[in-house]
């Protein structure tokens, strides 16, 4: 394999505390090494920023609901197709790009890993088929477990060990990475057209509350010692006044301690917090509660969050929060798709236009930015758009620009039709903070890598780590918003596994993607295996023997093996 020496760049690597110092980075055989031999290809990174490949912690990029979004919105392909390159496949789509475009676009922005945030277990094979076809980037997927019948029964009976054995079985069956919770209990209620709006609303029939589900799953996660914490989309998403439910949920993490061998310190990842930081009690007096929420997050070191930034685009919302999508359809009357999945979960899809001419959209935009700007610990605060829910991931360059430039934010505020109302309902206009590249690197590289339990090999540039490296045409001196956005969207170089995959924003190599999944060994558990057999015989519509996603579906699989038998 080839050898490279990246010279003269400004290196931003929070995992080693390197903040914009000039450092040479040597690459050999897919790894970062101490020094390169004289035969190494030299890459001149003068005036450029050198960072680890970025990690996406939460996006909907592969699987059944994403694909519904693609095919039921042919209009999303209009005006948004790229001219095909030499070595690339046809690209298409804007808010829900095709798999080819998804891989290429992440790579062009310097991303080398993305987490599919919601994999319905019954559809795991579909998720992996799409991941298989997505070029360049490494991927993993989180099975949704927050409304699973097995889980609810075990947790209701306080059988954490059984639940852990079931989760371990499920991760192996689905080639999954960790525990995703979406609207705990509420999605099961949705199967009857109902919902759980607080953490204490009982789930119909199952006689358990969202709070009990969340707590039980945190215990399960730490029992197994999974690389990632539980990853939660809370109840009451997207509703005015929901920040109290958010605070109630976050408090459930108190008193739990992370137990794992990956250096992960938190027990809960709260995702797309923008959608959960709303004040007011209707859309008229809707306001930001980002400060209240972030005050708590800053104090409580047990949790990580991601932002879910609104990008002010026409997009396609999609979530396992079935009742929310029905509610959203009631607000905008755009086409509503829904799939309820037996014993497991549900999903809904509705297009949405975040218009700068609508006051609420402006406030949502502000809240997303406030979360990042109020953060005292960039290593626990990650940038996402909850792609494609608050906007497509391809807008990261613009979000980074807003975060790094007060001028860019002020320009956007001025452009709102109801600027005054947006300013009144938020604090964004009075925040002077401009994030540094070091902080951006923490929020997109070192931080998410640590939260995902991957910091040993990813998210940093120390010798021995995987050579996933992004080199950008900017540095801390760059202040022009347009220049920041352009540079962040078109890497000068992207190394993936030590190979150049992108050069000057152009894909030059399809890379060798890996699918990550977690294989936990647990004690033999006859009870759980009996329950599995019974549920498949009686309630599932597929045979147990056809549930497993074979390893052939995970290309170049990267298996994280754990032993939870002790």
């Amino acid at each position, binding site marked *: 394999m080839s050898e490279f020496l990246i010279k003269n760049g400004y290196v931003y690597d929070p995992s080693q505390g390197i903040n914009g110092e000039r450092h040479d980075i040597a690459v050999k055989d897919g790894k970062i090494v101490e020094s390169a031999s004289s035969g190494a290809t030299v890459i001149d990174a003068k005036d450029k920023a050198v960072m680890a490949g970025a990690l996406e912690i939460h996006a909907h990029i592969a699987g059944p609901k994403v*694909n519904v979004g693609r095919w039921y*919105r042919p209009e999303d392909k209009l005006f948004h197709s790229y001219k095909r390159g030499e070595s690339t496949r*046809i690209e298409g789509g804007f808010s829900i790009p095709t798999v080819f475009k998804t891989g290429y676009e992440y790579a062009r922005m310097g991303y080398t890993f993305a987490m599919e945030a919601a994999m319905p277990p019954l559809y795991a094979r579909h998720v992996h*088929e799409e991941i298989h076809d997505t070029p360049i980037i490494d991927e993993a997927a989180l099975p949704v477990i927050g409304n699973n019948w097995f889980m609810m029964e075990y947790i209701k009976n306080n059988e954490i060990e059984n639940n852990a054995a079931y989760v371990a079985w499920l991760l192996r069956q689905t080639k999954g990475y960790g525990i995703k919770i979406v609207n705990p209990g509420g999605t099961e209620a949705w199967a009857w057209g109902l919902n759980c709006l607080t953490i204490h609303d009982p789930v119909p029939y199952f006689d358990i509350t969202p709070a009990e589900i969340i707590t039980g799953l945190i215990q399960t996660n730490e029992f197994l010692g999974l690389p990632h914490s539980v990853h939660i989309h809370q109840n009451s998403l997207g509703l005015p006044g929901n920040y109290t439910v958010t605070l109630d949920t976050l408090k459930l993490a108190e008193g739990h301690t992370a137990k794992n061998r990956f250096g992960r310190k938190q027990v809960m990842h709260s995702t797309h917090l923008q959608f959960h930081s709303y004040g007011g009690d209707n859309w008229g007096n809707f306001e930001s509660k980002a400060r209240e929420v972030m005050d708590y997050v800053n104090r409580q070191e047990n949790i990580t969050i991601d932002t879910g930034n609104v990008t002010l685009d026409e997009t396609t919302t999609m979530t396992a929060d079935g009742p929310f999508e029905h509610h959203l359809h009631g607000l905008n009357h755009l086409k509503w798709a829904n799939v309820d*999945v037996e014993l497991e979960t*549900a999903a809904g899809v509705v297009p949405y236009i975040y218009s700068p001419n609508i006051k609420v959209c402006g406030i949502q935009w502000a809240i997303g930015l406030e979360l990042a700007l109020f953060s005292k610990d960039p290593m626990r605060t990650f940038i996402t758009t909850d792609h494609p829910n608050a906007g497509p991931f391809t807008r990261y360059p613009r979000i980074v620009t807003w975060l790094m430039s007060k001028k860019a934010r002020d320009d956007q505020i001025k452009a709102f039709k109801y600027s005054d109302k947006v300013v009144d309902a938020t604090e964004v206009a009075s925040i002077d903070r401009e994030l540094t590249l070091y902080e951006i690197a923490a929020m997109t590289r070192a931080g998410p890598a640590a939260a995902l339990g991957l910091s040993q090999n990813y998210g940093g540039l120390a010798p021995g780590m995987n050579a996933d490296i992004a080199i950008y045409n900017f540095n801390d001196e760059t202040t022009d918003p347009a220049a920041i956005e352009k540079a962040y969207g078109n890497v000068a170089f992207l190394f993936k596994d030590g190979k150049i995959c992108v050069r000057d924003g152009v894909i030059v190599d399809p890379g060798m993607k890996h699918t990550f999944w977690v294989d936990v060994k647990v004690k033999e558990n006859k009870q759980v295996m009996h329950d599995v057999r019974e549920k498949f015989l009686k309630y599932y519509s597929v045979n147990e023997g056809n549930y497993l996603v074979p390893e052939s579906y995970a290309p170049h699989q990267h298996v994280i093996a754990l032993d939870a038998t002790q």
Partner: protein
Amino acid sequence: MPKVVTDVTCPFCGTLCDDLEITVSDDNKKILSVKNACAIGAEKFNHTKEPGRVTHPRMRQPDGTFKEISYDEAIDFTARMLVKSRKTLMYGWASTSCQAMSIGHEIAEKVGGIVDNCATVCHGSSLIAIQDVGIPSCTLGEIKNRADRVIFWGCNPAHAHPRHMSRYSIFPRGFFTVKGHKGRKIYCVDCRHTDTARVADTFIQVQQGYDYELLNAFRTAARGGPLPDEIGGVPKEKVYEVVEELKTGRFGVIFFGMGLTHTLGRNHNIDIAISFTRDMNEFTKFNIIAMRGHWNVTGSGQVLSWQYGFPYAVDLSRLDKARYQTGETTSVDLLTRNEVEACFYIATDPGAHFPIAAMISSSKKPTVTIDPHINCTTEISDVHIPVAMVGVETGGCAYRMDNVPIETRKVVDPPEGLLTDEEVLTRILNRVNQLMEEA
């Protein structure tokens, strides 16, 4: 010793039953018996026993007879045809694996093909409607576990999806449906009194072609609006009565089929059925599911969608972007307007299932058909490439009518020397690459 292969998925219809048990001779060559399958599924597996299977590619001669050729010759002919043609219809895909489709799409991107699947003459109308109004739906297990109001509209599963009723929709006992059939009210809306109508509690005989009007009446009744005395031959009292019963259910579902997609109005019939379903969610839980026909037509839609963003009729002839416009890039229209230069059929039989005008056009063009058996299309093609039967002699991923992916299995060896779809397509792709590099 004969052995039993369990958890076998049936490659016939969109029900994709995955509980077949097939006994195979110990040399893996013969299927001895088939358990749990319907009459059609059993026939499919038993067909492998029939003598006279074509095992070599065949090329049509000027006198109309066929001559055996080698796979290499057949593949070279196909690749040359594809490279030469500026616009090739690449139709079928509904009876092959998703893995094979992926290879086919790569070929299509290279040579500028138009990839279309059997939805084009089947549930294409439904896909158009969903693109207009969305779809509230669920997996078939949800029906089994929760549904107490089940409507079959313009479909006849007793004939087209024989095990649908026993596995999912009428008879099974589920978690919240412990009484099985007794706990469900079954409705059938059709212009014929079908075998499905016979098992329904309520049969509503709609005049052929009046489904839109009747669905509109259902919608109006759900909202408490006034109706004329009779709608499509159905008295208004009946409509009000049925809608009230549906509202009192806890979980309702509409299964619909070609009775809606093929009749006048096409997508508009589905559109209003979906809109009615959506309206019903104001009163109770209600879902709607298309009775997809071929076992993997859904899979073709899925793969095309994640690769190009459209579920069928995907025009890649511009080479740098994918286009989709029903009526323009759909197979029957392309053929009747003579807009393609060559035809490539795989895992389907348009000769039997397309209107004749389309096939007359097709028969005038260079044509290659890849199919395990002799059929109406192979006999009017220039080259027929026989392959192993997917789901019987080779495996691969398939998608059920509710989009649930299930693996099909290999249960017996294909006849000696026969290649699989994946192998044939890979070799065509390689040959296409060679020819294009040479050019």
